[in-house]
């Protein structure tokens, strides 16, 4: 698994998706805090609560794009060939891709730490809140990485797989936030959903990628 993980991380950092996401998310959150340092004059949420909500929404929307944009391109027959050439199990390849993308999204989430700390200071709230929200982002990263990796192998076309992954991920987060509001159950369920999705896809890939599908005479 080591060479696969190293290779996937190498491919990810060489593609512009991570840097673009990193800059875009930090810019959006920083701009929000600069324009509305005490929060938008809507409802009773504090500035920190508004910044937190914006962070989660942006992260949940940008995450699938980063994964779909940065993933190594082997799908279908190419994945079967890679597994056959190197002697890897297709399940290991799919699981490693998801792991690499979860790590990468965790890295992207760290860029949101300074603006969140700024919002926490402005709202005079305990710093532990920021730590809890970083854990929330980590659970979203796991869910997003799992769902998007699976979608890139199941759904045809990069655009379609990105759209489906965004929709499924957002739906999962919405359901989780309704059914298990607050720490730590919501985060645990979201992360578990990501892991379970990858586990199911890995089991499926053990048979789906043994033989070539597009074989010609």
């Amino acid at each position, binding site marked *: 698994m080591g*060479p696969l993980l190293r*290779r996937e991380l190498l491919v990810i950092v*060489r593609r512009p998706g991570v840097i673009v996401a990193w800059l875009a998310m930090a810019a959006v959150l920083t701009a929000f805090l600069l324009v509305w340092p005490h929060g938008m004059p809507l409802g009773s949420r504090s500035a920190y609560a508004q910044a937190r909500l914006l962070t989660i929404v942006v992260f949940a929307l940008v995450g699938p794009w980063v994964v779909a944009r940065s993933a190594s391109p082997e799908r279908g027959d190419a994945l079967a*060939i890679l597994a*056959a050439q190197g002697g890897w199990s297709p399940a290991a390849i799919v699981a490693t891709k998801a792991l690499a993308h979860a790590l990468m999204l965790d890295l992207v989430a760290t860029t949101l730490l300074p603006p969140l700390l700024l919002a926490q200071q402005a709202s005079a709230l305990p710093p532990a809140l920021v730590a809890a929200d970083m854990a929330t982002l980590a659970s979203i990263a796991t869910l997003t990485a799992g769902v998007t990796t699976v979608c890139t192998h199941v759904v045809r076309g990069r655009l379609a797989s990105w759209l489906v992954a965004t929709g499924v991920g957002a739906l999962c987060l919405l359901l989780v936030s309704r059914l298990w509001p607050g720490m730590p159950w919501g985060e645990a369920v979201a992360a578990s959903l990501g892991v379970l999705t990858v586990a199911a896809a890995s089991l499926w890939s053990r048979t789906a990628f*043994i033989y070539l599908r597009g074989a010609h*005479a």
Partner: protein
Amino acid sequence: MTTAVRLRRLTRHVGETVAVDRVDLDVAPGDALLIVGAGSSGRRMLLQMMATLVRPSSGSLEIGGVDAIRDPLAARAQVAYAGTPAVTGAGLTVREYLQFMMESPRGRRSRRSTSVAQALDRLALAGDADVDTLSPAQRQRLGIGVVLMLRPPVAVLDDLPAGADPETYASVGAWITEVCSEGMSVIAGVDADAESIPWASAVRRIENGGLLDAVIPFVSRPPGRTAAGVL
């Protein structure tokens, strides 16, 4: 001695068409067999079945004594394939890709593998070149190089590119001769218009899915002529 590859009445249907029709074949360790066939002759399908990448419709296929239909993954440990789809090193340089494959489970199992530096030298490819920027012929050569570098008991090489760069292909041909002398079996596929190939120990032609019984006599290279054509 165990046969490296053994096919009996191997058949593959694609829809209503019989792509490969009741092929019998034995390949011994150290053999270098060339299968000549035009597009849609069934050559690619036959080679991909021998590489355990396509499931036969009927017949039997053994690789290194392992039933490849019953246990394709165990049989796959004995055979490696280069052909279509081509190499899978997108996002890496040529050196990184070769290193990546050397660190693969198959690479770690290989006891007599060639070093990355030797492979680069024999393939005449720049180590720092991006795999994504290679020409189709260079990608194909890289794929062949990876298989020869990993030295599985059986190598299946399809779409050997014809024509360009005789020196490089002579070098790869010498590499094939070397691995065959060490007991590795090589089964290679070329288009129907391919010229003679110095390293082939036997040549068979495939037409309409059937492997012709007649062995095409090996045509030795005329004195003074370089190994042009294919490999």
